[in-house]
């Protein structure tokens, strides 16, 4: 879905350079998340997904050299 958005606006050479699972323990490193929110996530999300809640991806792409400025 995200990659399609890159193509739709005109980017070329769209590449997923990295894809890494991101789990609840990873979120715990961030000061953005309060302990009670992390606990809420632990309860709300099935344990099988706790280690792969989302994925961290790196996407690279380029603007074609012949693209209109």
């Amino acid at each position, binding site marked *: 879905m995200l990659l399609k958005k890159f193509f739709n606006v005109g980017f070329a050479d769209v590449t997923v350079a990295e894809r890494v699972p991101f789990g609840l323990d990873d979120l715990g490193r961030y000061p953005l998340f309060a302990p009670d929110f992390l606990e809420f996530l632990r309860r709300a999300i099935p344990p099988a997904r706790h280690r792969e809640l989302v994925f961290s991806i790196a996407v*690279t*792409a380029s603007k074609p050299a012949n693209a209109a400025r």
Partner: protein
Amino acid sequence: MAHFSDDQARAIILDAYGRVRAEGGAAVASAFYAPVELEGLPRDAVEMSLGVGHPVRHAALRPGETVLDLGCGAGIDTLLAARAVGPTGRVIGLDLTPEMVARSRRNAQDAGLGTIEVRQGVMEEIPLPDASIDVVVSNGVLNLSTRQSRVLAESFRVLRPGGRISITDLVLEEALPEDVLKSPAALAG
């Protein structure tokens, strides 16, 4: 389906990122950056690293290039980009929150990197001319926008023909429970 309007999302981001404190030390930075990269960076930039990857590593920056760091936060990627493009390059950091703009300006100054300029603004309307940037980098910020296609279109607009973009972000490959998706705290992350 969007759970927040543009205005609601922006208010949540302003609040969450305006209040965040570097209590966790450098745990996030050490997960993504090599120790040698963190050497010599201002402590605040390292401890306020809130990204989800290392877009500068994938950007293959060259000396003399002009880089835009979308959602620069406290500026860790801005600083690394400035090192990579050297004294003939230029790096522009853009962030929504006044607190992060102030931090990244201070961190650039503390690092002695005069090639960095930090602006306050929204990534859906990047305050830069067309075709003025060689490389756009962004770290864990695109998912904060309710208009991701608009952000990418704006990135495309400001890039010179042949320019590059390197973005790290979190993506869902399987839906989360509805009550999690409706949580402001989840949006902020």
